[in-house]
């Protein structure tokens, strides 16, 4: 079913269409929230709020554009709000205590853990672009629409994010000298 047909059915009040919309995007939304917030519980709360806003604003969606970037754009904004509230909320020590341990269970996953830690250390806007591109598989244009930035800015931020991640891996001794451009 196309995005436009799905939205029409949701606006008509069909429960089955609403369920299909949630199931179609829940993995992307939760994955994005987890990667941006680094906290599973917070990510689910924010994901719930994302879908509330999606259904409230469904009438405003432009049918000429794809639905996924629009939904992920709402998710990015909600995550930014949550990060801002978190900065004013509990002390960092309490938050770190709740944060999941990202160290790999064994050496075979050392690289994966270090990559995750390096991505988590990125600045928020770089991390958004990096996660949307590499984890959510979004195109430059869709990312630009989701975060309301030009495509050139998206490419620049993505490049800088990769450079920082590789630099982190190099400092850990996991990347050779002469990093990827």
């Amino acid at each position, binding site marked *: 079913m196309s995005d436009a047909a799905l939205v029409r059915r949701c606006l008509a009040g069909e*429960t089955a269409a*609403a*369920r299909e919309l*949630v*199931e179609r995007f*829940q*993995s992307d939304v*939760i*994955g994005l929230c*987890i990667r941006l917030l680094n906290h599973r519980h917070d990510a*689910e709360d924010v*994901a*719930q709020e994302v*879908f*509330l806003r999606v*259904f*409230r604003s469904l009438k405003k969606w432009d049918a000429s554009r794809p639905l996924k970037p629009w939904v992920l754009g709402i998710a990015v904004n909600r995550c930014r709000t949550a990060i801002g509230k978190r900065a004013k909320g509990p002390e960092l020590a309490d938050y770190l205590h709740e944060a999941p341990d990202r160290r790999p269970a064994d050496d075979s996953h050392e*690289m*994966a853990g270090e*990559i*995750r830690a390096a991505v988590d250390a990125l600045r928020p806007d770089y991390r958004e672009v990096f*996660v949307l591109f*590499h*984890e959510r*598989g979004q195109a430059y244009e869709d990312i630009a629409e989701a975060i309301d930035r030009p495509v050139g800015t998206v490419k620049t931020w993505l490049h*800088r994010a*990769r*450079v920082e*991640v*590789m*630099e982190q*891996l*190099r400092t850990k001794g*996991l*990347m*050779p*000298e*002469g*990093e*990827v*451009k």
Partner: protein
Amino acid sequence: MNAQLNNPISPECGPTVDRIQSVLDRVHPVSVLSADPHPVSCEACRDRVRSALQMLELFAEPVAVRPGFADSILAEVAHDRRVRFQRKAAAVFGGFAMATAIGLALWMNQPKDPSVAKQSPAPVPQQPAPAPPIRVNEEFAKATDALRESTRAVTEPAANAPRLVASLTDTLLKTPTVPVGYDLGPAGKSLADIPDAAKSGLEPVGNTAQKAFNRLLRDVTAMKPKT
């Protein structure tokens, strides 16, 4: 960026690095990396390829969604719709109630008697126009005109009175043709005894007196009040 400047890539590794970049950008599939022969002989490029593939594999992993997540979302959406509908209904009802109250208040404050409402308001009493300023010249002219008219009314009959008496006495003093058989002896004697003043009637207002009076009126009207 600084790392790139501080750690330049060797010319032999350049093409492999470019392919890795294209795979990360999803321009080319991952299979192009396995087709590149350079990493076989270059340990640095082998590490680069391995890191890139691990990153792609890591981020390609689907995120596990707990069971029932969709149900909780739909329940929350339904609750949110109910709350928003109740708020809208309360706002509409409140607005309707306020409009009704205002309408009732306006209706109750209207006057009961329609005629009262239709009556025109009492006319504002107009103050009398202020009297025109008294002009002395005009007043003297009015007075002289009145006197002139009154003297005519007085003098003309007075002037006519002696002629009237004279006409009457002359007729009687003339020897009338006495009808045969009438004796006018006593009446004629009485008429002859009327004094001359009586015969002349009132003092006559001759032209001289009239002229003097007219002269008086002219002098009066010529008087100009001091301004």
